[in-house]
């Protein structure tokens, strides 16, 4: 029987990023401004450029590498189902591109259970949850927000894996986004998989031809092109507003980059240079089957290594957890 659970001893925190070496250049937008002719396509979606035009991107334009701090974020999660509840190991990594890649890595264990004796627990690692999936998402978004806010310095471009707006996480993410922006940071969110139909739903012809916006972008963009920028505003909460575009830097798949509308407004003159830098980062990573921007890919490497640190089955045995039959059978 599970007695006292103490997960503190298996937490890992490695802080490798030195804040002393940050470069800070006072922000003065200087780039050529993107011409924006906003076209309202629906009550929630408008196009900020010509929706039928594909815009060229230039991966050789990487001046921002020297002018901004560059950060990447990703996480890796390992779940383990025990009779007593779910164990969740969340490894999150923030990397900073200095002379070498620097990283902050934390691997945090959580115990999610519906045992009522934990209903009033004050322990951060042990969560009473009747809806484990919801609690899991809360943990992930907390981890992401904390890791980024604790690490990222002013005047940074932050490349973050996952969407800005989506479900219950939106509130936390938008709040984080605001704080970053207050520090002269440009948070950019990257989405690889989505069945969103925001763009094609506005045009019968497109919705006849394409299954999703990703499908449309993959077919309509050529290598080295991006789509127009689109603005989406949540119909219930106007704070949950984002601007996004599809970018195709490599053969095959397109990816979606999104940012808060306020970010876009504040830094709109820098958008050509930012999309160029994004294209460069896709090319540097160069994985045709799993396209990612380089800072996110490096953060992912560290996050995965974080999970490898721990021999989780042995650890759980020592802590007194008993695996479910399916956990034993299928891992």
């Amino acid at each position, binding site marked *: 029987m599970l007695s006292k659970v103490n997960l503190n001893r298996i937490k890992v925190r490695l802080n490798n990023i030195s804040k002393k070496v940050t470069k800070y250049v006072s922000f003065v937008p200087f780039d050529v401004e993107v011409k924006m002719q906003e076209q309202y396509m629906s009550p929630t979606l408008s196009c900020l450029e010509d929706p039928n035009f594909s815009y060229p991107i230039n991966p050789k334009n990487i001046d921002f590498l020297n002018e901004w701090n560059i950060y990447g974020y990703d996480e890796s999660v390992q779940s383990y189902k025990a009779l007593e509840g779910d164990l969740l190991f969340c490894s999150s990594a923030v990397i900073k591109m200095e002379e070498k890649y620097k990283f902050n890595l934390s691997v945090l264990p959580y115990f999610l259970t519906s045992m009522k004796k934990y209903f009033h627990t004050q322990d951060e690692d042990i969560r009473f949850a009747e809806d484990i999936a919801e609690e899991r998402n809360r943990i992930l978004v907390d981890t992401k927000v904390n890791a980024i806010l604790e690490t990222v310095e002013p005047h940074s471009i932050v490349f973050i894996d996952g969407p800005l707006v989506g479900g219950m996480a939106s509130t936390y993410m938008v709040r984080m986004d605001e704080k970053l922006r207050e520090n002269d940071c440009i948070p950019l969110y990257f989405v690889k998989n989505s069945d969103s139909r925001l763009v094609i739903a506005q045009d019968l012809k497109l919705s006849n031809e394409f299954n999703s916006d990703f499908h449309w972008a993959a077919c309509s963009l050529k290598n080295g092109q991006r789509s127009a920028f689109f603005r989406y505003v949540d119909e219930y909460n106007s704070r949950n507003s984002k601007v996004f575009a599809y970018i195709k830097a490599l053969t095959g798949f397109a990816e979606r980059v999104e940012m808060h509308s306020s970010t876009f407004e504040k830094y709109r003159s820098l958008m050509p240079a930012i999309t160029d830098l994004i294209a460069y980062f896709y090319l540097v990573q*160069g994985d045709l089957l799993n396209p990612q921007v380089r800072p996110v890919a490096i953060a992912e490497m560290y996050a995965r290594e974080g999970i490898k640190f721990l021999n989780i089955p042995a650890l759980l045995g020592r802590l007194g957890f008993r695996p479910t039959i399916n956990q034993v059978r299928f891992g």
Partner: protein
Amino acid sequence: MKMWIVSGTEGELIKLVSSKHVDGILPVGSYLTVVDDQNVKHVLVVEKSYQKSLFEPSPLIVDAELPLLQQDQECKNIVLAREIRQFPLRADGLFSFIKPNDVARRTTQEEIDEIFTSKEGFPIFLATSFLAQNSKLRDDAARLIYVKIPFDSLYLQTMICGQTGSGKTVAMKYLIEQFLTHEKGAALAINVKSTDLLTMDQPTTINNEKLKKQTQEEWDTLGFSEASIYEFRIYVPAGSQKYKEGVSKDRVRSITLRTQDLEPNSLLGVLQNITDRAAEALPNIFRYWKERVHGEEITFRKFISWFRMHATKENEYTFPTLSQAGEESRIPLHPGTCTAILRSLESAIDFFDSQERDCIAIREDHILVSGKLSVIDLSSKDTLIFGAVLLRHLLSKIYEAKAIKGQYSHVPVLIVIDEVHHFYKSSASVQALEELNAIARMGRSEKIGVIFASQNPEDLPGGLTSIVNTRIFFRSLGNVGRKFGIKEMSVELSSLENGFAMISSVALPQIKLVKFPMSLMGVKT
């Protein structure tokens, strides 16, 4: 500080990863020290070392003519090393682990001295290899690291192999020099080529500035200033070219062998490519002639005449013999064998019983002089067969004097036989190697060491390779090293640079790759 961090194990080897302060690759052969949490020092030797690119960028960016991210250039040095010692030893009889996350640094000279404790020995530099390039091992302060190989190991017999120009001869000179200086022994060397060993009374001169600087650093590290003066004599077979260019004339003496003194078994030296049966017979035939036939004058010429008389159809090519035990018998030889023996005997005839002025009949007491180097010069034409007889004769006399008569017990002896296959064929029979075997086997008790040198180790008689306990391979062809017990490290013998050698020694089995220092005397580049 440059450090390597233990990340785990691969088989018997410890795996280490370089820390961020390391900006290069630790070559194979380097030594690392891990000090564990109990203050036990673990010394490891690197057997494999390579670089690992941590964040390999995509080839696409090369294709797109894009600049590479500086961060993507970060590399780590991955090292696989074998633990060879740990000290101090634990009181409970166990040996300590090297644990993941333990930290290693380069081993210091003091730690090398601690684990290889020989105080009396000849120093050689530890060496490393990477990408078929050799370099001397250095500590963190870039000082050269060396070990001392005990002189006692020389008495367990040594084999040195290497191609021409690989550093084999210089190493022999160095060993002779160290032996004379520190062991105060008597050295006998056979010179078979040019003036290789004939200028050992002359200080080394180096014209190449780079080599000169490297050599000076080696000598400074070892505290060498100038060579001790030792007695040096060159013995040249009578009738052959006595003086050679660049050789000090006053060191040269003509020598001969008196047939009356000749050990019958020494005649095995004249036998080239003949049957074992004939090899067994010739000493007994000679003994018969010497004991039963000769007149007042015992000369080589007369023995040949007598031999020729019996090597006829009328005498059915049958010879009387007298064994060491005094038993008489008769033995028929094949006519072809008789002809071959006669041809060999006649080629050496002029070197025996010479009446030349100032020519001395060489004896063991000329050789067995403390601090003296005697070189027998067999580089002139046709002297090799005589040399083979002479060598056997002298070895036999040295053995007799030291082992049987108990003389010269205070004089250690080092015998250096270059191009040993000229004197002992690779197919030599057990009997043909008898006296050499006897000497080699009593080497440790009587302090007699033999260095067998050859370009190709496969030229050495099988019977000899099994009695040597130190094998030194300079640059050699093919995989001969593996055949002769040099293995484990990923170093190719064929790629060794001059002076660098793989070594396998019972005295210091952990030492693998070394650089021999330049001798203070006798080298001219």
